[in-house]
């Protein structure tokens, strides 16, 4: 669907830390419903790209447009409100909060609460709290976490924590979802379920997904297009079968055999 307007358009994004050029001239276009992979060897700058897009780091130069609106230089919460949600590579749940509250908190950007309304408990306050509760439980059911709603998030098993991160990100009502290594630490069975889940999330929530993943089995299976990053520079872009045979990609990955993906 190349005629669609771009949901996320990134051009020439650069970021240096001191003398280290972490990301150079990064460009990317996501159209509605895309499911794109972002891969590369360790330290290639993939997570830095996510941090630039979500406002954790400020880009040195470049353009980032979310639905036509510039998001470069905005604080993270504004970018979240504009419709970009993410998960974290090293899980960052609100550990002491319950599973349910983790998701309820993320409904935050779509609420219209006021301090006076909260303290006085107006009709609107009750209605909104109920709506948030219903939305959060809906999401937990979809992610098979409903029976763990009252547990503290830090007590969940690893795979559940990864899924809760995705559920929490979806609760912000995003148009673009950035997933940072969702399969990390999962066993084979969980990885198979995760592929299904990501596909379902895309179709049911109509979100556009950008996925960082080291597991080539997952990436090659579910992504329609893949961008490969090495030393902060894009070295290849295209559909999975093309990427797998790209000599530059094979070179970047040399010495790192990944049997599942068939590269190297």
């Amino acid at each position, binding site marked *: 669907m190349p005629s669609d307007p771009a949901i996320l358009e990134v051009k020439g994004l650069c970021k240096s830390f001191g003398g280290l050029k972490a990301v150079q001239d990064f460009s990317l276009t996501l159209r509605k419903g895309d499911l794109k992979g972002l891969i590369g060897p360790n330290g290639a700058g993939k997570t830095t790209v996510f941090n630039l897009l979500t406002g954790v780091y400020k880009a040195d130069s470049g353009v980032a447009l979310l639905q036509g609106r510039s998001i470069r230089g905005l604080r993270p919460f504004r970018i979240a409100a504009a419709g970009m949600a993410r998960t974290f590579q090293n899980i960052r749940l609100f*550990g002491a909060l319950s599973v349910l509250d983790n998701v309820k908190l993320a409904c935050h950007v779509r609420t219209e609460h006021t301090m006076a309304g909260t303290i006085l408990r107006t009709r609107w306050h009750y209605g909104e709290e109920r709506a948030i509760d219903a939305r959060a439980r809906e999401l937990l059911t979809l992610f098979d976490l409903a029976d763990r709603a009252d547990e503290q998030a830090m007590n969940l098993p690893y795979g559940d924590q990864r899924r809760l991160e995705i559920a929490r990100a979806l609760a912000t009502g995003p148009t673009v979802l950035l997933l940072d290594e969702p399969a990390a630490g999962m066993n084979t069975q969980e990885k198979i379920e995760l592929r299904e889940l990501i596909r379902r999330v895309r179709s049911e929530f109509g979100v556009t997904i950008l996925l960082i993943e080291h597991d080539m089995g997952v990436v090659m299976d579910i992504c329609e297009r893949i961008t490969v990053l090495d030393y902060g520079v894009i070295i290849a872009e295209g559909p999975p079968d093309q990427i797998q045979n790209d000599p530059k990609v094979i070179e970047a990955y040399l010495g790192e055999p990944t049997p599942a993906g068939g590269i190297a």
Partner: protein
Amino acid sequence: MSSLHDKARQLRPGIGAATLSSAWPVLGVVLLAVALQLVIKPLLSGVAGGDFYSKVILDIGINVVLAVSLTMVNGFTGQFSIGHAAFMAVGGYTGAGIVYYGSMYAYGDPAARAGALSTMLTDHHPGVLFTGGDALYVTALVAGGLVAAACGFVVGLPSLRLKGDYLAIVTLGFGEILRVLIQQSSDVSYEADEVRAAPLVGLAQLFERPRADWQAPVWARLGGPLGFSGLPFYTSLFWVFTVTGLTLLVAYRLKQSTFGRAFLSIREDEIAAEAMGVNTTRYKVWAFVISAFFAGVAGALFAHTTGVQLSAQELGFQKSFDIIIMVVLGGMGSISGAAIAAAAVTMLPEILRDPTKLVQWFPGILVLTLACAIAAWIVRAVRGVTAKPLWAAAGGGAAVIALTALGYTAVVVSRWIGHPLDIKLGDYRMLIFALSLILMMILRPQGLFGVREIWDKALWPKAGRKG
């Protein structure tokens, strides 16, 4: 999925239902406070040492307000404020100025004109519930809170924009600046004519050439290093527990809302909170301002309490630390934990002052435990956890009673041993107090309840499962 807005509109309760569930806790708080003032206090003054009990209950109330308000900052948002007493001082001095000079202006002398709701005296029967003096006092409470909240905003905004422990340093500095300013203030004015003649806002004077008859405006006459003396006493069980109840209610309502979740998310992980759309600066400042408001009100309550001399020394660093101890003991982020810890920390030194008097405290502790057990049982029954919890509560009560008995035995034994050696346990009360704090931190570092509340099901996993 339908939008959250439409769903919220659709799920709104009716006006009647919403008003009822919103208003009954407020009514309940006021009724309880009235009962405490007009029923419990007269009953207590009939008993030997009863007035002392009343005073301890009053101190507990003020400390609960302080601990619960501080827990909104240190507990909910995980920032570290070490100058809570400074906001108390702001509220206290603001309130004192309004009540003292207001009385001088209106009546010509600062004596209390308290109605039946605003007196701790046993032989004072004004015949009316509320007087003009009381109106002045209520104005002072609210103004004390508002001025403290404004200070909280000014102090909080620059430091809370940053991540890290800047707030601790800034609040510490604020406390010191305030102490010096108060100590530099002029003497309290005792002449009604002088007060009536003195300009309320003397700013213009500051720009004039110094004259021989220069007088400090009343807002700069706060008693200096000696403290603000001659304040009328209005603070009673009614006012203290109205404020305590409202503080608890506001803290609870905030915690159970989008605000509370945002506060706690900042504490748990600031980066993740921002990524989920939380404007961390805005929420940290909100928490800090609300916390400062209640500290200010508590300060105004404190200023007008019998037996208290309002001074900067009294509301210094030591007081801030006392409040922090209560919050840490209660569990960072637990409202009920902070309240219970505040009560315990207030009572413990009084009990230890003369441990042999434990016999006198025993009925009180017994009644309190039973009341807590019954209240916990009702709350849990309402929330659908039935059966065993009553036994769990009774077991908890029995444990408290057993501990008290054990403590008493220890006291008696130590008296036998101590008497010939001339050791009085009361002399070591602060030592025992400190030891019990250390013990608590070793045995239960997360505090009484951690981030949970006493009524949370998850706090009582065993009892809940059996039920």
